[in-house]
């Protein structure tokens, strides 16, 4: 179990044969939590972006992170797969356990962390030099998977899960950038799913899309939670209400309130949460 975070390209292939739900989890972990974040603080240089956040994120559920701009929600999300380390001069304190394993213990390769914790970005970003098909399987290919039959199966499976297969199955050789905005975002989701992560992080995945494309992505997110743990950042309160099971409200780098979405939206304990949700600030 300890070697799950070891950087071997074979692991991906082996893991590909199993379902993600069968990924072994540490017996000490509370079963329903994928992430256990304890006392997380993050600094950008001198500026503290996240202050002492402790939170357990439920498995096979959608957790929405809300809060005004600059409250640290993106930083928190990026710290869940160590993407925040790409920003120079960051410092992190605290622990993040993914199914019982510490993502930040020494010797853990961030590359392997990101293979297990995928990420979808605000702006859809299919690789412009690649076809639709190549875009989906690029993560596997660059990690050393070359079995064409396996890649083809994974290609179709991922596109079906992203609800894009029927729209693009005859155009797999067209450039990824030839798709519409909403399709591009679903292509990026398929690309993330193709490496079979355990968790999918989404950083405002719909904020650049029109309402129809947004509805499709929201539906997709709800479908995906049967297989994946999903954490999504959103600026859109209605969206958080529609798609999430749990909601975390961040303000000025602190986690103000966290609980089931219905509770947060109908009966928030904190004044700040209520003010934000009812649109009094933010």
């Amino acid at each position: 179990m300890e070697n799950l975070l070891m950087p071997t390209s074979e692991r991906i292939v082996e893991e590909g044969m199993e379902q993600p739900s069968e990924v072994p989890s540490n017996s000490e972990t509370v079963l329903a939590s994928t992430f256990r974040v304890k006392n997380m603080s993050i600094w950008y240089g001198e500026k503290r972006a996240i202050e002492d956040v402790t939170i357990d994120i439920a498995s096979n559920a959608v957790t929405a992170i809300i809060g005004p701009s600059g409250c640290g929600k993106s930083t928190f999300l990026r710290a869940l797969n160590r993407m925040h380390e790409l920003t120079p001069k960051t410092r992190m304190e605290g622990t993040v356990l993914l199914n019982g394993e510490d993502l930040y213990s020494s010797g853990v390769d961030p590359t392997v962390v990101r293979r297990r914790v995928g990420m979808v970005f605000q702006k859809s970003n299919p690789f412009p030099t690649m076809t639709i098909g190549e875009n989906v399987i690029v993560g596997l290919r660059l990690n050393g998977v070359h079995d064409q039959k396996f890649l083809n199966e994974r290609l179709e499976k991922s596109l079906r899960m992203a609800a894009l297969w029927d729209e693009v199955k005859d155009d797999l050789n067209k450039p990824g950038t030839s798709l519409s905005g909403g399709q591009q975002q679903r292509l990026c989701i398929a690309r993330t799913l193709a490496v079979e992560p355990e968790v999918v992080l989404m950083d405002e995945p719909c904020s650049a899309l029109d309402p129809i494309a947004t509805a499709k992505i929201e539906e997709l997110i709800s479908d995906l939670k049967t297989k994946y743990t999903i954490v999504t950042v959103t600026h859109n309160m209605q969206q958080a209400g529609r798609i999430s099971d749990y909601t975390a409200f961040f303000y000025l780098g602190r986690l103000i309130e966290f609980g089931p979405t219905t509770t947060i939206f109908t009966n928030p304990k904190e004044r700040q949460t209520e003010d934000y949700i009812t649109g009094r600030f933010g």
Partner: protein
Amino acid sequence: MRFEGKHNHTWRKFKSALACTIAFVSAILVILPLGLVFFYLLINGIGSVNWDFFTKLPAPVGAVGGGMANAIVGTLILLAIAGVIGIPIGVLGGVYLAEYGSARINSVLRFLADVLNGVPSITWGVVVYGLIVLRFKSFSALAGGLALGLIMIPLILRTTEEVILLVPNGYREASLALGVSRWQTIVHIVMKTASKGIITGILLALARVGGETAPLLFTAFGNRFWNHSLTEPIAALPLQVFTYAISPYDDWHRQAWAGALVLVTGVFCVNVLVRILTRGRGASPL
């Protein structure tokens, strides 16, 4: 202010038209030398550009005819040597500047590369003469290629860096978020996205050094015959043009015109190729 003063209005319109005209004339003046060069070369050189020119060795003094086959092949060999030295170092250096390194070190490196770009090309000839030619006591194709390669390095380094910086950060993040390593991301995502720009930089650097004469004067030295070894002197088109142009023979002058015409046409073709490459299929923003 009110909308009065019709005179004012006319005067301003006149100034605007004047400025526009001056800018237009300046633009024409920029292109004019190119037109003149081509026109002159065509008139004087086209008569000597024939099959013999591309296939025969230079004729002995006094004999009519002959060609520059050895010089054309020589230039290609020199460019190949220069490319082997200049392309990998320039491209990898550009990748380092764009992707790694600290801001302070990078700005120093960038400044030094710009200084190198401004170094007169004959300096490179002198440096290689001191380093290689004196040591091995022989002019050689390798020395000439090295001199050209050294000129290429800072050129390619800067263009590579610039086009890599143009690749949106979103692509890097998307790749890294898939669990792809930094180096794989740089090679397969970033450099692939910027490949047209990188190739353009390489081609322009080759075209630039292909026409260099000064760095070859005391490195490649020139050769009236075929070169049989890279450790021997080698002919090059610009060198041959130089030698023939300062000679007292009319026949050689005609050959020099033809050589210059072929050289300029070659550079022109490379630039056209670059235009076609950069137009591309529109898949890439670069």
